[in-house]
Structure formats: C-alpha cells, structure tokens
C-alpha cells in the first residue's frame, strides 16, 4: 500500500472509508484514495513570458553561479547552497527564463505566505511580460499563470505539474522535519528540482541521497562583506538581562532580539519597553503585520521576535541579539538570524549570542560563518 501523493507506506495510516481505503497521513490536504493518481494541473503559458531584466548588475560570482545552475539542470537536480543574502533568487532567474522559453512549467515554492507576496512583486518586476500567480492559504482561486509562486503547502494542488520546481528555504519550518510535506512538494514536480538553502541539515541530506544532484554554491554576498561573526556571552538570568541591557544601551543601530518563545517575547518586552522604544512579534500575534512594518520605518529601535523574523526580512544597518535558551535554536536558525546583519550595500551591524548553556549548534554556526568568510 502506498499513497501516490505523500509516499506513505505505513498501513496504520490507511483508513477504510465509504469510498475505499484512503491515506490519513496527508488527509489535511484533501482525501486521496488508495492508489488513486491525483490529477495534474495544466495551464497555458503566454508569449514573451521568459523575458527578464534586472534593475541592477549581477556580480561576476552570481553570473557564474547562475550559468552553473542552468548547466547542471540538464543533467540532474541542483542543490543551491548559498550564504544568507548571496542572492539565491537572482541566481535561479536565468534557469526559470530558459525553461519558460521552451514552454515548460515553472514554480517557485517557499515556506511563508509573506515571502510569497513579496516575491510576487519582485518577479513581476523581473519578468515584465509574465503573469505571476501567487498561491497561498486564502488566495488560491486562480491557480494558473506563467510563473507560479506559492507556499509549499499549496503544492498539493499541482501533482506532477512542473518541469522545474524551485524549493527555497528547504532548511526552514514547515519543510524541516516534515517528511509528508516534503514528499508532497516533490510530487508536484515531473522534471528537475532546485533545492535552495543556506544550511544543509540531516533531513535534506536524506532527501538528496535518493536523488541525483549537483551542488552550486556561493559564499559571497554582492557587497563582498563578510558574514557577521557573533560575540558570544554565557550568562544565566538575571545576568543575561543585564548583558542584553548593556548591548541595547551601547548600540546606535536598530536591533532584532530573537527569543525562544512567545512567552519570552512578552517577558522581555514588558521589562525593556519601560526603558527603550521597542515592540514585539510572534507568529500568531493579531497585529503582527503592523508591528513588522513599523520596525523598518524606524518607529521602534528594538523588536523582540521569535523565529518569525529569521527569514525574508532585509533592514540596513541592523544589529542582531540572540537570547539562546532552552536549546530551541539549531544551527540553521542561528545562521539565518545572524544573516539579517549586513544585508544590502554599505550595511553595517553587529551580532551577539547570549546563551545560558554551551551548545553544539553555536559551535556549528561559528564554524559555518568562518568557512563562508574564508572565501573572501
């Protein structure tokens, strides 16, 4: 017994309903009966949708990586392994255009809805003649376009529909550790896949082990600035609070302070909002969008955040402080959080980790940053 969509073979997840056996492992995406082949989604491409232009010049390294990526796709899948802010999206543009020129279907899948909305605007500028279809929860009435940009959760609507699928941030929630979602995402592709990531974890290694792939890597940001190497402090509470206060009082920049839970977010906010202009954000906060938008506009100097802000946000001249407690953050999280520093041209900032324990993920992160900076 095997579910053709999510690949589940565990008989415990098959339930006999009125229409026969169905898979309960991927039931939240819709019911699929045992050995029922889901329908693929077909759509027409418009003319000249492959034409693209950048408002800026790509660096020589980006151009090289872009050409390597396209060449590698002729033979196998691609692991696009780049540091945060290296311009992964720019690197895959040439490949997208090449596929569209040949009348082949392309999709760009990413974890978060906010990033899909941002990418839709970005792709609309890069591909002026293409119709970009953004598909995410609550926005899936029209599934067709020349280029589909969607969340990974929406890929179940496109079974074996794409000739090129780019899965961005493979190392992030919700794909990380979610085998069902990963298999559904993979089943949306009938051709090649580009796995785009800044860190390669065990889960991704497992997926890649079953496929033939080539690695295209880029450890240089367009600004040629090194990744910020964090200063690490080991303090327990209440000394960690004093340490954080010291950092906040000395910095002239805005800062994102990452904490491990919603509870911590509110705790730190209640203390520090008495002394500093600050706000906070976590995933199910009602006015999350307003708080996120108010921060880059300069309304607040500090923002306390859970992992919500670890990806997809670019603010110039920003510091990052990570309150690493309760072993919540792994190396992928830390790399992404620290990657917020120094994004964009002439952007400066510092990074700090205040930890109450010594963790291997911190060592791994420092090792990763040193390795990336050694390419400079």
């Amino acid at each position, binding site marked *: 017994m095997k579910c053709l969509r999510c690949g589940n073979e565990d008989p*415990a997840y098959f339930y006999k*309903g*009125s229409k026969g056996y169905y898979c309960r492992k991927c*039931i*939240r*995406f819709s019911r699929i009966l045992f050995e029922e082949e889901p329908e693929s989604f077909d759509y027409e491409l418009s003319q000249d949708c492959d034409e693209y232009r950048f408002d800026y010049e790509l660096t020589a390294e980006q151009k090289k990586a872009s050409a390597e990526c396209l060449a590698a796709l002729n033979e196998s899948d691609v692991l696009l392994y780049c540091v945060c802010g290296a311009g992964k999206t720019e690197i895959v543009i040439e490949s997208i255009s090449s596929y569209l020129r040949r009348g082949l279907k392309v999709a760009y899948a990413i974890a978060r809805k906010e990033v899909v909305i941002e990418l839709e605007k970005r792709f609309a500028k890069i591909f002026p003649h293409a119709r970009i279809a953004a598909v995410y929860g609550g926005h899936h009435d029209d599934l067709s376009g020349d280029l589909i940009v969607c969340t990974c959760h929406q890929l179940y609507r496109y079974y074996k529909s794409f000739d090129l699928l780019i899965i961005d941030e493979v190392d992030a929630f919700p794909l990380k550790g979610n085998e069902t979602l990963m298999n559904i995402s993979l089943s949306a592709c009938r051709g090649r896949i580009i796995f785009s990531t800044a860190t390669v974890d065990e889960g991704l290694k497992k997926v890649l082990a079953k496929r033939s792939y080539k690695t295209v890597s880029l450890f240089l940001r367009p600004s040629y600035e090194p990744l910020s190497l964090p200063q690490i402090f080991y303090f327990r509470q209440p000394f960690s609070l004093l340490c954080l206060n010291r950092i906040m009082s000395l910095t002239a920049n805005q800062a994102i302070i990452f904490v491990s839970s919603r509870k911590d977010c509110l705790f730190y906010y209640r203390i520090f909002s008495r002394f500093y202009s600050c706000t906070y954000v976590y995933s199910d906060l009602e006015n999350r969008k307003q708080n996120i938008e108010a921060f880059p506009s300069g309304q607040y100097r500090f923002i306390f955040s859970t992992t919500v802000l670890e990806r997809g946000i670019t603010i110039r001249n920003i510091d990052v402080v990570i309150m690493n407690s309760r072993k919540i953050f792994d190396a992928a999280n830390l790399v992404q959080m620290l990657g917020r520093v120094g994004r964009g041209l002439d952007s400066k900032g510092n990074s700090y980790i205040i930890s109450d324990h010594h963790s291997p993920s911190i060592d791994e992160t420092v090792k990763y940053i040193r390795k990336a900076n050694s390419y400079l």
Partner: protein
Amino acid sequence: MKCLYCDKEIDTLSLTSLFLKEDELCEKCRKQLNRERKIIEVSGLKIETFYEYDGLFRSMLLQYKECHDEALKGVFLYGIEDYINLRYFGYQLLPVPSTGTKIRQRGFDHLAGIFENVKLPRVKGLMMNREMCQEGKSLSERREIIDNYSYNGVHLNKVLIVDDVVTTGSSLMGVFRTIEPISKKIKVLSLAYKKY
C-alpha cells in the same frame, strides 16, 4: 494506538480506560476541544450544545467534513453518546439533511456518521426541496433555507433534531417548522454553536 488528530501515542493503560470506551484522541487534544454543555437560544429555539465552533474543534470538524476524513466520525460525540441515549430515551433522532451533491462528493453523510452510535430510532421522510448549500453565504441568504424542507412521513411523537454547527439557526428552524404540526414534542441539539 495513535491519536487520530495529532498522531501521538495514546496511553491506553489509564484508569479511565478500564471503565470507558477507548478514546481515539489523546488527552491533550481531547482537553483542547473544551467540551462544555450549554443551552443557547437562537431564533427563539432552545438548543443544547456541547462545543464552541472555534479552535481545535473547528479544525477537526473541517477535516472531517471538507477533507472527508471519515475516521474522525467517532471523536465528536465521545462521552456524550450515553448521555444522549439516556436523556432523550423515547425520542426519535432527526438529523438535518445535507445536500445530495455534498453527500455524493464526500461519499458519506457526515451527520449520520457522527450520530452513528446513538441508539435512538431515526426519522425518515424529511428532505430538502432544492439543493441549497450554506457555505460562503451571508446571514440573510442563510435564512432563505427556512422554507426549504418538506416531510412526507408518518405522524411523530417525540423528536430530537440534531445538527453539527448552529450559526443563524436557519436550518434547525426550517426543520422545526416543517415537523412541528405533526409532532407532539420536539427538542433540538447541535454539537457546536458559532459566535457571530
């Protein structure tokens, strides 16, 4: 045994499992359903309810109805079935009918599934005059359903009308009005109520 909703292993050696039927949900999920018996009044009807249509209950019911996950049919009335059997002894059960299209699409009648283990005799002969789906409709549009039922069966004694979620109460009111002239006593029960 695994929880039907969160897939976590259920501790089957608890003290309650010696006396009660095995629950298909884990303790955590069961707790999050927030079961609380309430009598609410909607459009002049007194309706007995057990959940608020929100949070985990909403997600679970949507998984059952919209994702067609029949495995969940037994979880909603767990611990309530015996109460209904005793409280409404001598009543006939009348589930609010669903549209034929929905039943064909799902392959099962969702209300019949939920109330499968309730041992009350069923009323037959109630039908919808025309297919009307309430999904995505405004409150005023939903009220149109009141006159959309007809009954062609025998006279009824004591009837328990049941539904899954009460929002405007239009479906329940429609069924109530249809059978009121030919019934001696009518009670209304809805699994959940929706605040609006």
